């Protein structure tokens, strides 16, 4: 059971290689996996550096989104006025397609790395914010009554009841936002890359496609997919571990 995905992947790779060879597909249309692997081996440092750059943007954006998301959710749950003021903007931010505003952000922010982080943050922000807000409101009314009965202040109730109750919600938001931050980083890199900013895996993909270096493009794509998968599983496992330590899973 555990090895089923890996076996399936290997089988698919073998079929792919076979299909490319038997069908005599030109390498600039579809390279076989062996060609892709050789493209990676030809320049592992360059590709891995680009991956590191993309991941750096991803994690920076995730961190900023987590801090902003939690801070705004807490502010919102503490005051109805803040809720009325913040909620529509958060939704507006969520429904605005990132590719449409990325060029603007890149121009406004100026410093390219910061611009990438801002773009990725915009897309990673919402799940963290919305999940945390839901979690902060999740304790049953009886528990709120109990805290009131013992004269707990609003901030005490926040610290001892609402924030701990929000933790599982926050963690599942973090997992979703991890994937989104990567998407945001890549989208921003593509936009910035067409503007001549050479960094990140998305730029390598762009560059390879201009030069019709399909194997290299596929190698970059694979790295990206692998990073996405590892990010998703890593955040999932970390969240599970934290919840288990808290006796919640």
């Amino acid at each position, binding site marked *: 059971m555990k090895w089923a995905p890996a076996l399936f992947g290997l089988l698919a790779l073998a079929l792919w290689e076979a299909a490319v060879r038997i069908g005599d597909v030109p390498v600039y249309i579809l390279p076989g996996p062996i060609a892709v692997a050789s493209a990676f081996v030809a320049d592992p440092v360059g590709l891995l550096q680009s991956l590191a750059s993309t991941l750096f943007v991803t994690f920076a954006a995730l961190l900023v989104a987590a801090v902003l998301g939690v801070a705004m959710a807490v502010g919102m749950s503490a005051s109805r006025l803040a809720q009325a003021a913040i909620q529509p903007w958060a939704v507006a931010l969520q429904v605005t397609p990132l590719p449409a505003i990325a060029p603007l952000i890149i121009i406004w922010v100026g410093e390219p790395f910061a611009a990438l982080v801002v773009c990725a943050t915009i897309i990673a922000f919402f799940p963290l914010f919305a999940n945390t807000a839901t979690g902060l409101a999740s304790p*049953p009314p*009886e*528990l709120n*009554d*109990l*805290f*009131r*009965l*013992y*004269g*707990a202040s609003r901030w*005490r109730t926040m610290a*001892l*009841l609402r924030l*701990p109750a929000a*933790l599982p919600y926050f963690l599942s938001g973090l997992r979703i936002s991890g994937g989104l931050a990567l998407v945001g980083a890549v989208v921003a890199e593509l936009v910035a890359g067409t503007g001549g900013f050479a960094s990140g895996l998305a730029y390598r993909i762009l560059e390879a496609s201009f030069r019709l270096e399909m194997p290299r493009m596929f190698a970059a794509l694979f790295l990206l997919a692998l990073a996405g998968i590892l990010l998703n599983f890593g955040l999932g496992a970390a969240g599970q571990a934290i919840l288990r330590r*808290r*006796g*919640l899973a």
Partner: protein
Amino acid sequence: MLTIGHVGRRFAGGVEALRDTSLRLTEGDFVALLGPSGCGKSTLLRLIAGLDQPDDGALTWDGRPPAAGDIGYVFQDATLLPWATAEDNVFLPLRLRGQGRDDAMPQVHAVLRRVGLAGFEKSRPRQLSGGMRMRVSIARALVTRPRLLLMDEPFAALDEFTRHKLQADLLEVWRDAGCTVVFVTHSIYEAAFLARRIVLMTPRPGRIDREITSTLTQSPQTRLDPAYAALVAETTRGMESALQ
């Protein structure tokens, strides 16, 4: 201890939950509030706890009004913090009063022992049975040594055996602690077994219809006592006429 005088409570949306309700609680009472669903029992309990304010009438305390910790509240569900151990759940009221953990632990462990949970101090709610969770909830309400213990159908979700055990234990705790108990239930048997005073409420808008005083001497055999059967019969008759 407390005089509830002609209290009324209407909710937004026009629901009149309580009308002209009067009741006196004296030190050491064990009062069962008995009535059909929706008659305002929980509303009355919340008024007593100060979690809600009446629209008409007033609640007057003899002497000083209750401070934080003078009232313990047990809800229908155990409503524990799922991430906290049994001892941390029981520690919560003391913590909210500003007491330190080390300072509070002897008290916390004593009250857990009192409700029969010695050895489960470090267990999380999900590791405990429904009855044990309710015991933690009762311990949490008792840990501040409240003068008044309010219980809102605390055993309704438990099976019969567990309920009987917890009822007997509650009586023991009540006698030891010497506090006043107001116990909401819609079980005539439970009211007859536990209470010294059975207060019958009418359907919405809830009013107090009559009060039955129990003269049972409570013991493990109470349920087999003909006097208990007579009290159940009297309460049933009273409830039927309150429902008219």
